[in-house]
């Protein structure tokens, strides 16, 4: 339950940034989604997003996306100053439409994955990842 001055500072800065930018971030997320989908309807199902419920280290959070039959998967960290994480494109010879990577999360937020399927439709999956100070276990 203690924090070094450095941690304290980092946390304070983190929350200051988070407090200052949510409006802009939401706009960025909407813009990124619109650019990827062209404004099309987004359904559910057919895409799996695996991420920890609580990050062990917010600086490197392992995530995995899997959308059989997708041609591309967009990943967004919706609470980051720059939400765009990346877009995975799958060619016709891809054996699986699956990708895993590690991402940095500025704080507790939803990770959003949207897959574009071969027929041009879109599906999404979303999960909250909590970035906590931690401290006291049973």
């Amino acid at each position, binding site marked *: 339950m*203690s924090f070094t001055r450095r941690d304290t500072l980092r946390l304070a800065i983190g929350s200051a940034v988070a407090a200052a930018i949510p409006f802009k971030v939401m706009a960025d997320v909407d813009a990124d989604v619109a650019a990827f989908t062209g404004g099309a309807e987004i359904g559910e199902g057919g895409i799996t997003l695996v991420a920890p419920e609580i990050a062990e280290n917010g600086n490197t959070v392992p995530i995995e996306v899997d959308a059989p039959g997708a041609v591309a998967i967009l990943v967004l960290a919706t609470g980051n100053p720059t939400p765009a994480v990346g877009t995975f494109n799958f060619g016709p010879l891809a054996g699986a439409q699956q990708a895993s990577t590690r991402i940095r999360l500025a704080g507790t937020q939803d990770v959003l994955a949207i897959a574009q399927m071969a027929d041009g439709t879109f599906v999404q999956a979303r999960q909250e990842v909590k970035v906590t100070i931690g401290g006291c276990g049973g």
Partner: protein
Amino acid sequence: MISRRDFLQASMAASALVGASGFGNWGKLAAQQTLSQNDLLDFDTYGNVSLIHVTDIHAQLKPIYFREPEVNLGVGSNKGAVPHITGADFRKAYGIDDGSSSHYALTYNDFSALAQGYGKMGGMDRVSTVVNSIRAARPDALLLDGGDTWHGSYTCYHTEGQDVVNVMNMLKPDAMTFHWEFTLGSGRVRDIVNELPFAALGQNIFDSEWDEPAEDFAPYKFFERGGVKVAVIGQAFPYMPIANPGWMFPEYSFGIRDQRMQEMVDEVRAAGAELVVCLSHNGFDVDKAMAGRVTGIDVILAGHTHDALPEPVIVGDTIIIASGSNGKFVSRVDLDVRDGKMMGFRHKLIPIFSDVIEPDAEVTAVIDEQRAPFEAELSEVLGRTADDTTLYRRGNFNGSWDDLICDALIQEREADIAMSPGVRWGPSILPGQDITREDLWNVTSMTYPNAYRTEMTGEFIHTIMEDVADNLFNEDPYYQQGGDMVRVGGMGYRIDINKPIGERVSNLTLLKTGEAIDPSKTYMVAGWASVNEGTEGPPIWDVVENYIKRIGTVSVAPNTSVDVAGA
């Protein structure tokens, strides 16, 4: 899958058993001074497989007093649900008579008075007697240890867990999973695990660098028992690097990983498992949630949150067993497994009344052998409790042990505010009882004991309180870490447990002046058990020992500084 009728029959059988063998009767038996080992162990052996579950022993090799919680609140769908009921409500739910031995073992009311009559509970030599008795009826019963075993005492700290390992090996467990063990450091854990004569399991223990299953821990193990192919899948505590210092075991990553749990269940079923048992350190609410998401688990043996439940909780086709902590209870679960299915169960939560159950002399000898080199240090009396004070820890918001620790931190470290971690381990001390060094270490022993002293702004203190409260009261159990609220000395607050993070904690008040905590002002905070590497300060047991020696007689006034709403 089991039909509802099968389950109903099973639970009726279990109820009949409860009526016949123990639960409701202990009070009367005790009143007649006839509470006997035979009554406690009486069990009509059933089906073809027996499981024996112990968990969260926290290195308590000798009998102890342990007061169960007064406040244990559930949120969301778990509000008012088992195990979030206490005291009279708990006794009513399970038909327990007031003043009975079950009242004493399972609820907090009149604890010190009942303790005088019923005595200490637990002791691994008594647990051994119970295990031996079950094995006499069912020689191939599986003994499964849910973890938090190699942590929590003076001798465990000084032998780096070896004392508990030596004693537990006498009981011959078949498998184990983990939590606080990792705070011995990953090197030490691997050294012990490599020598263990039983399986070290954890399907969710991963290599942190490659995010692949760690090689040192198998996900599951198969056993052939009573002609039944049994698979035991391990589930270690999911939030180890968050709740405990991750720098002590940097090679490992955890998490709930229920997708992999499902894969493991499917894998063992495909390999012919007729009974799938999950040996879990998730915590009860997480286990309940996981049982609703993962299909194909027959039995979850639950640990971590220290709940002791006289009956299983049933979610779908899964039964969840909670076996308490600190060696107070052993669960026996008999199962009827036929045609690759669990057809029924019979269960008993066996309370280890140390004055009733004969110790296993061989195990007593091994326990005493572990303690012998430290006997002088263990038995030194530091002070005593006043006639009005029971020292205990369990409860969501405060316990008198932590009030004492916080007082010691404020006085000895000259702080405005003290913080003590909301852990759930640590036995109790009765009024007018000597407090020995062993007693103090039972509530403070850990490998990161440094008592820090640091300045924090009011705003930052609030952030910490909110963060910890969300780890306890998030409506989604998957976002809970177990444990209780951080204990605070020198400061009062109000908490509305049903609000979202950032809005639960309010009315922070500095008790010595009665003034509201100013978000922009700086306060001197003393605490211990920081998860950060390089934390400086004396070990907490030295701080508290000095304080107890100085005041001599410990009297802790009831804590009225936490105002809880939404319960």
